[in-house]
């Protein structure tokens, strides 16, 4: 017989003394660290306050942000192209894409940046046009030396975006693969073209898989920009604060200044990522809500 008694259970909850002890210990050492750091002379918080909004530092933060944004922009475009090429029926496209990813993912980004910095040593000049045809000493075409054409900033952007493109290609490929083939079929059956199917059916669903790792890649790129000193580009946040500290003989507060700016940017990026992920979880979050 089913019971009609609905008394809620009254029981003494299980105690967790170790959990409490560990938590108290962690709070105590964190507090001790903070209190100590606020007094410790080496951190020199006065210098930190003096340099955090120094016009040179703010400008350098702008350069870091620009490097990140431009490199990710080109990396995403290239990454999507290489991901689509990997799915192409044309074997040459597949092979080129594979080779690109193999080379650029298989070597350190620092080494790649040094290579790009030496571009003008390897290829002194480039020429677009028809070779060996001259009219009165004028080239028919477009002839420039590498250093004339590309500033160090753009060399850094090229280096960073090509390296990142290899990673983005794999992320995008995983996203496209995650969409059930029935989706493409259903879209095709109602007469959608390949591009319309991609645009309105496949990509929006792939985005749910693509966005979280892409967010990580942007955060990672923001920090990787500190390696552009290999090019050597010295106008970014890290290089600039380091240069200032060589004048002041006081590196620690400037490291803190750089870290504070990096943290500020990554925090903003995390907030943006949260909202973007929510947007592309439509239909899927409903599924999770149902299951729980």
């Amino acid at each position, binding site marked *: 017989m089913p019971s009609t008694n609905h008394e809620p259970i009254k029981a003494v909850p299980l105690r967790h003394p170790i959990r409490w002890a560990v938590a108290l210990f962690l709070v105590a050492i964190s507090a001790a660290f903070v209190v100590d750091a606020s007094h410790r002379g080496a951190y020199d918080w006065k210098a930190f306050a003096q340099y955090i909004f120094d016009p040179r530092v703010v400008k350098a933060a702008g350069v870091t942000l620009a490097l990140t944004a431009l490199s990710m922009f080109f990396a995403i475009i290239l990454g999507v192209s290489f991901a689509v090429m990997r799915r192409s029926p044309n074997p040459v496209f597949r092979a080129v894409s594979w080779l690109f990813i193999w080379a650029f993912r298989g070597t350190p980004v620092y080494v790649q940046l040094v290579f790009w910095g030496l571009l003008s040593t390897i290829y002194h000049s480039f020429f677009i046009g028809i070779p060996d045809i001259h009219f009165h000493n004028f080239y028919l075409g477009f002839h420039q030396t590498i250093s004339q054409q590309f500033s160090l900033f753009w060399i850094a952007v090229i280096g960073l975006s090509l390296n990142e493109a290899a990673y983005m290609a794999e992320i995008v490929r995983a996203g496209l693969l995650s969409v059930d083939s029935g989706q493409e079929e*259903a879209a095709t*059956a*109602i*007469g959608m073209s390949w591009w319309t199917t991609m645009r309105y059916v496949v990509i929006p669903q792939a985005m749910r898989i693509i966005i979280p790792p892409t967010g990580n890649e942007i955060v990672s790129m923001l920090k990787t920009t500190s390696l552009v000193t290999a090019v050597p580009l010295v106008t970014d946040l890290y290089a600039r604060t380091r240069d200032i500290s060589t004048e002041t003989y006081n590196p620690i507060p400037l490291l803190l200044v750089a870290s504070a700016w990096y943290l500020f940017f990554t925090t903003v990026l995390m907030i943006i990522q949260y909202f973007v992920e929510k947007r592309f979880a439509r239909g899927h979050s409903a599924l999770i809500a149902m299951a729980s």
Partner: protein
Amino acid sequence: MTPMVIAEEVHKSFGSNHVLRGISLEVAHGEVMCLVGPSGSGKSTFLRCINHLEKINSGRITVDGTLIGYREHAGKLYELKAREAATQRSGIGMVFQKFNLFPHMTALENVTVGMVRVQGINTSDAQVESKKLLARVGLAEKLYHYPAHLSGGQQQRVAIARSLAMKPQLMLFDEPTSALDPELVGEVLDVMKELAASGMTMIVVTHEMGFAREVADSLVFMDGGVVVEAGKPVEILSNPTQERTKSFLSKVL
């Protein structure tokens, strides 16, 4: 009047697997044809050939007098451009076993998207039309639900509405009730019956012999990539002449 669908000696192979071995049949305007047969007999493949989701290796298929997948000129066949093939497909509705609704769109958006993105109808007109279609399949209350919030039967009815939105002249159903819980099969079959009564030409791959008996004008039994037996459903179901038909029916009836 010429038949809606004419298939002549259709062959289809996947690599060395010869799935269709010469299918010839005709479907009249307004006819409901049920395709039955054991799994692997080529029923679904044949259905997918009709809207050119699969390319056939030889033979020809016409829908409403138009050759599918090719243009014929001076005795030569020219493959259709992607856009032309897409236009051809939009006139042929298809309903899948696993519904294949777009999960990131509401029921209403699922029905609207084809009208807006393929036919170029403006969104508000498309929504008015879509709401009528969803009411027709009994889902007027579920317009803003995502597929994950709908039962299998409701999802399949949205899928039917999505196909109808393209105003097809022919509807293909690929085992539309096979993925459903038994108690949900009836609601989908009811929608299909209503559609049949409205005069839609339909080809239905199904294991629902009750539906075939009650609604279909013709029944085709396929096995091993050929048509083994075809005729009136009542005759074939009660008096199959072929041995393979008899043995199949004895297992499913």
